[in-house]
């Protein structure tokens, strides 16, 4: 009988680091033990959420009695151990390894997308590298820039293996791997194909963990800056729920800080004509998707129904489980619904000609760039979402215009697409879409409000969650999973007919959108959990906590859409999916 309450206090180990006594639990690595006393041993391949690789060797330190140096990331402490992190030998080795890495790295830092936000650059600054002691041997390799979401520049790769690990261990996709040997070792795709022609889903988790600019999101900041300066254009922006709890990371806030008000101010100061909230269209998604679920239940539709708002997940199922596509909800994602409404309803409402409306989406996601470029997501050759920026690109824009983010006052979203309910807010967390849907569906079916409003069984960070809720006339069994590795497990079960759920929420990224591939660098699982907690806090603080009670949504249906699943809704807010052998080719 496993009882976590009874777990013993961990055995403590005593060691000395640079003659300073340290006490840490047995099993701790030297790297973590040193951090405890304020020593940051340099590291590159190490990532707190990944298995230890011990490949870059820059964390080499001296351990008394050891013939060689020891990699601090993989050396377990022991009682009486003596570690030295700042001897001449250690410094020579760490700086020497850094110089070796530098010598095989494209050093165009001034024009690099990660200038000032590069872990390699930070180490070079830390060790005050002024003269390269090792001649440059960088192999110029072609930059892969053929899809709308991810750019790979192998000349900047330092072979740390973080991308490989996240793609394999977290996402279970394995679109990236090592090939070759000796100084020809590279990280590449199967058969060196462009990412979009491999199993890659463009989730961008690789770009989030890469310490350099070897893998980055496709930069669309200039497109947006140009649009903002174009007097013809009426530029409106929507911001995803997950951005407001992550953006602060880049401006000195604690992980998970809620910076909604300052974020809106920043967008207004950037020159956007209107600043709207994706939480609004998340509510719209619930109206459509919830209605679709009820429709499927009542009319014997394809069950279980799968959520469709995570574009990495859509890319995954289109490539890996095309036979299961009929299970997907046809509802578009909140971002795409927003785009469609912006170019129709909003255009009519505001009187701005559609051709002049330029819509920007700020997303925690790289795959959203791909989603926005899908031909289905637009009408008459026009895109519904003209540009997608990741949270990281948004941070760049804030720096670009020289805003002192921490000093900005709070502002409110604009109307009429600026009100979102608490249900819309929690879309950014794993389980949030499910909970939002349940709040509305429960009330629609039973005629009374769910009490309590919180569906705690679908909350939390565990990979797969399930729960059963009694809707009176019927019970609904639901499941929630995040990461594509868990999605694969779920789809394998579904293929075998072992899924007796009614509704399954799937998010491609760990923790849901708050952990998306476009979020600020240094996103870790610990920070993901804080962001999730913040979203639930936002939810609690809002006057409306159910999508169907959002007054802007009620007006939208009254004035424009009619009712969920209406013809107009179908035309604008629903989409189709198809098997993908290879993704669309983009020029």
């Amino acid at each position, binding site marked *: 009988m496993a009882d976590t309450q009874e777990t013993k206090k961990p055995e403590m180990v005593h060691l000395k680091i640079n003659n300073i006594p340290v006490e840490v639990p047995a099993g701790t690595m030297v790297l973590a033990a040193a951090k405890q006393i304020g020593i940051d041993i340099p590291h590159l391949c190490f990532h707190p959420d990944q298995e*230890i*690789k*011990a*490949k*870059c*060797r*820059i964390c*080499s330190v001296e351990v008394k009695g050891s013939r*060689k*140096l020891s*990699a601090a990331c*993989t050396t*377990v402490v022991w009682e009486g151990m003596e570690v030295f992190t700042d001897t001449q*030998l250690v410094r*020579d*080795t760490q700086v*020497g*390894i850094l110089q*070796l*890495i530098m*010598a*095989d790295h494209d050093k165009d830092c001034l024009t690099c997308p990660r200038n000032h936000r590069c872990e390699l650059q930070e180490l070079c600054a830390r060790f005050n590298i002024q003269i390269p*002691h*090792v*001649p440059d*041997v960088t192999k110029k390799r072609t930059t892969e820039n053929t899809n709308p979401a991810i750019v790979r520049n192998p000349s900047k790769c*330092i*072979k740390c*293996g973080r991308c490989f690990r996240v793609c394999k261990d977290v996402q279970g996709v394995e679109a990236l791997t*090592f090939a*070759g*040997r*000796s*100084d*020809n*070792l590279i990280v590449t795709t199967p058969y060196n194909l462009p990412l979009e022609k491999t199993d890659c889903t463009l989730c961008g988790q690789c770009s989030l963990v890469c310490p350099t600019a070897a893998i980055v999101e496709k930069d669309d900041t200039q497109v947006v800056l140009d649009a903002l300066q174009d007097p013809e254009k009426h530029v409106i922006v929507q911001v995803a729920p997950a951005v407001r709890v992550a953006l602060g990371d880049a401006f000195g806030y604690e992980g998970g800080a809620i910076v909604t008000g300052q974020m809106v101010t920043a967008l207004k100061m950037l020159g956007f004509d209107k600043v709207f909230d994706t939480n609004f269209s998340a509510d719209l998604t619930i109206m459509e998707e919830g209605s679709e679920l009820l429709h499927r239940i009542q009319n014997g539709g394809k069950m279980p129904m799968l959520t469709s708002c995570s574009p990495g997940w859509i890319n995954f199922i289109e490539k890996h489980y095309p036979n299961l596509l009929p299970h997907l909800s046809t509802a578009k994602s909140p971002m795409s619904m927003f785009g469609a409404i912006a170019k129709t309803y909003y255009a009519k409402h505001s009187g701005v000609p559609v051709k002049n409306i330029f819509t920007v989406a700020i997303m925690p996601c790289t795959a959203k760039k791909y989603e926005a470029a899908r031909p289905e997501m637009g009408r008459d050759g026009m895109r519904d979402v003209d540009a997608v920026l990741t949270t990281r690109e948004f941070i760049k824009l804030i720096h670009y215009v020289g805003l002192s983010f921490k000093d900005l006052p709070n502002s409110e979203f604009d109307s009429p697409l600026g009100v979102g309910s608490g249900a819309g807010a929690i879309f950014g967390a794993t389980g949030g879409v499910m909970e939002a849907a349940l709040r509305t569906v429960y009330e629609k079916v039973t005629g009374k409000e769910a009490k309590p409003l919180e569906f705690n069984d679908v909350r939390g960070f565990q990979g797969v969650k399930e729960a059963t809720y009694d809707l009176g006339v019927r019970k609904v069994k639901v499941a929630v999973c995040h990461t594509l590795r868990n999605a694969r497990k779920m789809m394998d079960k579904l293929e075998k007919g072992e899924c007796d759920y009614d509704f399954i929420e799937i998010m491609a990224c760990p923790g849901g959108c708050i952990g998306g591939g476009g979020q600020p660098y240094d996103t870790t699982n610990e920070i993901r959990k804080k962001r999730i907690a913040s979203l639930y806090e936002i939810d609690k603080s809002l006057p409306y906590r159910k999508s169907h009670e959002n007054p802007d949504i009620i007006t939208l249906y009254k004035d424009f859409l009619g009712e969920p699943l209406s013809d107009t809704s179908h035309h604008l807010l629903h989409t189709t999916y198809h098997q993908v052998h290879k993704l669309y080719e983009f020029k």
Partner: protein
Amino acid sequence: MGYDVKFITKNFGKYDPMSIDSYLSIGGFAALKRAMAMDGEDIASLIAEAKVKGRGGAAYDMGRKWSQSRAVKAPHKLVICNADEGETCTFKDRELIKNDPFNLIEAITICGYTVNAQDGYIYLREEYRHLRPLLLNAIKQAEEHNLLGYNIQNTGFNFHIHLYSGAGAYVCGEGTALIRSIEGKAGRPRKKPPFMKVSGLFALPTCVNNVESFSIVPHLLMDEAREYVSYGSGESLGTKLVSLGGNVRRPGVYEIPFGTTVRDIIYELGQGIPGGQSLRLIQFGGASGKISDGRILDTPYTYDDLKAAGVTVGSGSILVIDNRTSVLDFLRMTQDFFSEESCGQCTPCREGNLHIKLILEKMARGEATQADIRDMKKIATIMSISSLCGLGESAQNALLSAMKIFPKIFEIGGAA
């Protein structure tokens, strides 16, 4: 005491390596039968008392290794025979397999019995594919005679041996790369721990030994006269196969008692350097070994004496280079080898080998500066103390030892 003894090689030429009957007729498999009547711990002790050290290169106490492997409790355990023999100028394992395959099969089975394993794997280097039929035949015939397979000789002991061929990478001689190769993955070493004895091939506890190490065991078990321990002294008891090559009249594999001088190996067994040339250098233990010059000739070939003289036994090879090859050319050749064979995973080895190669080439062109030499030494040192596996750690042994033995070559303006 002779230079060329026959203990490990005593079966060479005595039987038909394709015939188990022939092997049985000279007393084959008696050691296995004897072993299966013993307690495994006693077998490990017997090996430990004879102070047998691993013959692949690391010279780890073999009795201790078997005893530690025994101590790991698991329902499924494995034994691996490392026949990758990738070190340059090393070919003793080839001779052992070619001349005495049944002894090897018997030895692996004894190891399986000792450490309570159910399966054994022979990892044969790709270049030895011509030896596959010999080993497959030995495995098949041993199974047919119930000396391998299920319920061996009605003892209830089940043990199977599988033959696996590598694909030609030197680094696959490193234990963790070897197991990845068998698993069908790219042959790249991984960090330790976990150690092989706890989690090796297929994440099962695995005991890995070299061909020569294995081959000693059956003879040791039958060595009632205690012949083996009568050779050598101190920590270096018994005999050793050396692979003698390079500029010698009679290259080949010789079984020597520990303590034979390097001079006797080269000039008596190998009959010296041909063509009136003089000795330039000797490399001990393969490409990853250190070098010395004529000053080492009177050193007895033992673990301790060689260590004191600045080199190691390593794989047991002795490469003799005469005055027609310069030290620098020798180092460049060695460097080319490692620049080809590094797996490229860890920074020091991947990048270090490349830069040292470049500096050596610069030296050969006469363009190197004293600063280059300093950088080269620094990089070589970084590689040897901070690489992920033994390959990177030992790749610059030749260079670093050459810097000690031939300091003048590394003084710019000195003789190249």
